[in-house]
């Protein structure tokens, strides 16, 4: 893309932020940003030019074959396979970069982990677009790898130990999403242990050696007990953890060596030579020893994340970069003046780019549900420290500034707002929103800290360390508080609750009895009976989704252990137990509630039109839904237009929403995770509203099979919020954001014209004050005009860099499906003031 001829000022006036950023950033950042291969799937397919990386699967398979008959316990074999990959994979250093590390062997590759699930491997075998040339040879390799892991992959091993009835219902794809695996989902991290700056890999290894030595001595003292028997498993676990950390250190040193080789043998530019020697020094130290500088700290974080993604497919990136890197930023930039602000911004911007390019091959439904991005890398900024004081620092500002320079769609930020946040930081957040990034989303810190204490019993100091474990859900990053793996299949396609009330739990799309056999809809003679049936279906669906996760959590320590994640987690280093072992976790589970608001809108329509006004019977409604409203257009429009809709500060429907949430909340306290904690719900959507369009049948809110669902969380249906932004906030504020669920996503569209200048900031600040005063836990903004979005639909080439907020994540507008694009345009633009 050519650099635009207009001046920076002209571009900013025209609000062409993506072109303005290009002019503003350093030549290094410009190179690195343009060097980045975007990895997010478009329409479920990976973009042209990307290829599945076959190097890692081959390394994993050759090591697994070699170890097949070795006497090592499984966890040690698994650690050795991971170490083999880190020792032997191809590494590279991109020109101008200062941070190193990538999952694949080349920048344009997507890594494939064949150890996870045969169903994933089958998709690779049949992938129409991303198999590298020469095709015949690649297919031979892929088939060999896939055949080897058939029956040996995690899911293949776990499934026979599950309730197969539940498993089939989950895998039908009608009500849930994801699989119950400890190596496929969203891994939390014990940042308080591994990122606090007081220890790094060598320190942990020393601790593991002490543990092994003590246990070994104890195991050989005279005596016998269960405790002594358990020590053998623990020693194996500690040994496996050590193998992964030692491999991590060696991997760092491989980069140190490559940087030195380039500097000494190839590079002719003295400045770049200096930088390469600096990279070499950093990687000689990191991750073995704690970081001393911002560059070391960022490199350390990057290695921690990449090693974890060598162990598992991680669909999220829980992180708090300003909190953990802030002290190094302050030291380098403010105190020692070793870096100028611009130099620091180069590092921070590159850190975002390094994260943005991370890629792991996923099954098609996951690619469709996460259109345009690789996963939900929602990084947490702001918030409070453990003592309750403001945690914002110069790194918070640097990250927000860097985001506007590199304009990646992933990672995005979520900002923990609290009353002590300075105006300077709020202005930085606003600038990102105004410039159309769609992030940071704003989170209400006091509410969410109280929520974490209420739902999961986290002590206040731990609750205050929370980060986003995925798009929305807070999880502390403490020894017992962090959740090692959120298994994504406890993600409910909640519109099915309503659908099943009319089908007695039979799913006509996948032709299977999934829900409860509630009474036939035509026999329900009161609204209360309809609501009772709804509650039964809700309980049935949630239970089907939660039980496999609970089971997988119990099976995980033995069948799908995580030696590396355990090694960077204090609970496991202390206990010798796998990080997923429920006995060492407080529990922080949640049910993601996709397609939630359709339930309230549908119930309100039934209550008003069937029972209050008696315009239709339940039998007529059932028949209309069964026929997808065909031949009943007038009736359908009645249900769309003449029934109350959520988001208009109308108590008629808002009270129904509360009834639904409170029934779910009550049941959430009956559903227990293996640690004995609760399973609260969390309404949000990613792009599930589009993915499920052809899976959810017709609904009483007037929606037809195939129509996009609402954009999610507690956001009103697109275009159905007719009474302005305050009415939306008022409806949302009727929900108790501490006790009615774990968090609630709210999408809002604002007009970029209205947000221009100081006046725009003041309008937004007033809106944010209302939002905070009303105790709402989340809000996120799209701030790109209809005109720009329509132009981008007409001429995508010209608008490659326009970013929009989809749901709990942002994406480049041109990378999402037409249906999702239309859905975003349909959202009401709220006028402020």
């Amino acid at each position: 893309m050519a650099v635009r001829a207009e001046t920076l000022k002209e571009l900013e006036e025209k609000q062409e932020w993506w072109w303005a950023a290009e002019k503003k950033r350093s030549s290094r950042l410009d190179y690195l940003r343009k060097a980045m291969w975007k990895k997010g799937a478009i329409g479920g397919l990976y973009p042209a030019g990307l290829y599945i990386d076959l190097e890692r699967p081959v390394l994993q398979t050759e090591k697994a074959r070699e170890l097949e008959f070795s006497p090592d316990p499984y966890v040690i074999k698994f650690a050795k396979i991971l170490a083999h990959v880190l020792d032997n994979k191809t590494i590279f250093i991109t020109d101008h970069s200062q941070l190193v590390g990538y999952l694949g062997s080349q920048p344009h590759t997507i890594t494939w982990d064949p150890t996870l699930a045969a169903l994933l491997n089958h998709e690779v075998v049949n992938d129409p677009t991303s198999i590298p040339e020469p095709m015949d040879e690649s297919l031979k390799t892929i088939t060999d790898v896939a055949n080897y892991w058939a029956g040996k992959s995690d899911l293949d091993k776990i499934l026979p130990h599950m309730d197969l009835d539940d498993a089939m219902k989950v895998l039908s794809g009608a009500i849930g999403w994801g699989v119950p695996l400890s190596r496929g989902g969203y891994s939390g991290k014990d940042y308080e242990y591994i990122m606090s700056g007081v220890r790094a890999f060598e320190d942990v290894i020393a601790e593991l050696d002490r543990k092994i030595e003590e246990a070994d001595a104890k195991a050989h003292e005279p005596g016998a007990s269960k405790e002594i028997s358990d020590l053998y498993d623990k020693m194996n676990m500690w040994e496996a953890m050590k193998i992964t950390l030692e491999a991590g250190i060696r991997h760092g040193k491989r980069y140190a060596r490559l940087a030195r080789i380039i500097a000494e043998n190839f590079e002719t530019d003295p400045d770049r030579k200096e930088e390469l020697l600096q990279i070499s020094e950093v990687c000689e130290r990191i991750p073995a020893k704690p970081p001393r500088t911002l560059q070391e700290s960022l490199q350390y974080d990057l290695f921690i994340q990449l090693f974890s993604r060598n162990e598992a497919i991680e669909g999220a990136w829980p992180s708090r970069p300003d909190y953990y890197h802030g002290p190094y930023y302050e030291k380098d930039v403010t105190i020692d003046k070793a870096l100028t602000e611009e130099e620091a911004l180069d590092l921070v911007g590159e850190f975002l780019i390094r994260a943005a390019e991370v890629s792991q091959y996923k099954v098609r439904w996951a690619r469709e549900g996460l259109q345009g991005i690789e996963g939900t890398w929602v990084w947490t900024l702001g918030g409070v420290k453990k003592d309750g004081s403001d945690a914002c620092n110069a790194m918070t500002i640097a990250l927000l500034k860097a985001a506007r320079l590199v304009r990646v769609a992933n990672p995005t930020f979520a900002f923990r707002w609290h009353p002590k946040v300075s105006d300077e930081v709020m202005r930085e957040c606003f600038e990102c929103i105004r410039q159309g990034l769609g992030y940071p989303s704003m989170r209400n810190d006091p509410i969410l800290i109280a929520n974490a204490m209420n739902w999961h019993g986290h002590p206040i100091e731990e609750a205050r360390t929370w980060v986003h474990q995925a798009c929305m859900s807070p999880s502390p990053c403490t020894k017992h508080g962090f959740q090692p793996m959120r298994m994504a299949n406890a993600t409910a396609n909640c519109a099915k609750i309503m659908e099943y009330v009319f089908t007695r739990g039979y799913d006509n799309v996948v032709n299977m009895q999934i829900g409860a056999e509630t009474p036939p809809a035509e026999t329900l003679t009161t609204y209360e009976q309809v609501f009772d049936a709804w509650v039964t279906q809700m309980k049935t669906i949630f239970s089907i989704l939660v039980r496999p996760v609970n089971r997988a959590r119990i099976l995980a320590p033995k069948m799908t252990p995580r030696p590396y994640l355990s090694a960077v987690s204090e609970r496991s280093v202390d206990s010798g137990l796998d990080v997923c072992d429920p006995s060492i976790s407080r529990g922080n589970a949640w049910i993601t509630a996709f397609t939630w608001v359709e339930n309230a809108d549908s119930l309100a329509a039934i209550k008003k039109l069937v029972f209050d006004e008696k315009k239709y019977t339940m039998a007529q409604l059932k028949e209309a839904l069964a026929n997808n409203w065909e031949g009943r257009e007038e009736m359908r429009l009645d249900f769309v237009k003449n029934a109350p809709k959520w988001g208009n500060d109308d108590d008629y429907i808002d009270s129904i929403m509360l009834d639904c949430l409170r029934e779910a909340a009550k049941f959430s306290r009956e559903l227990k995770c293996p640690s004995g904690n609760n399973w609260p719900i969390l309404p949000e959507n990613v792009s599930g509203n589009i993915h499920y369009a052809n899976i959810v049948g017709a609904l009483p809110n007037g929606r037809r099979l195939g129509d996009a669902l609402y954009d999610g969380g507690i956001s009103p249906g697109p275009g159905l919020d007719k009474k302005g932004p305050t009415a939306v906030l008022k409806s949302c504020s009727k929900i108790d954001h501490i006790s009615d669920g774990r968090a609630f996503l709210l999408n809002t569209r604002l007009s970029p014209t209205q947000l221009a200048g100081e006046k725009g900031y003041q309008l937004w600040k007033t809106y944010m004050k209302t939002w905070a005063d009303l105790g709402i836990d989340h809000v996120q903004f799209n701030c790109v005009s209809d005109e720009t979005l329509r132009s981008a639909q007409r001429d995508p080439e010209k608008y490659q860099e326009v970013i929009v907020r989809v749901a709990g994540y942002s994406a480049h507008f041109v990378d999402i499906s037409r249906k999702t694009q239309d859905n975003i345009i349909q959202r009401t633009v709220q006028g402020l003031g």
Partner: protein
Amino acid sequence: MPTCKECKRFFPLEEDPGKGDCVQRVIDPRQAYYQAKPVSADKDAVKCPSFEKK
């Protein structure tokens, strides 16, 4: 028969000269980089299109 150790792109490990890295410059449509892949010094280089005598 040429082996990797005779190649310009081979950089032996100090602690074990029988092993080393094959370091190559790569330019793809978006970026340029140097890559390193572990190889053994005695690896057969006959079929390697990038072999260049030291």
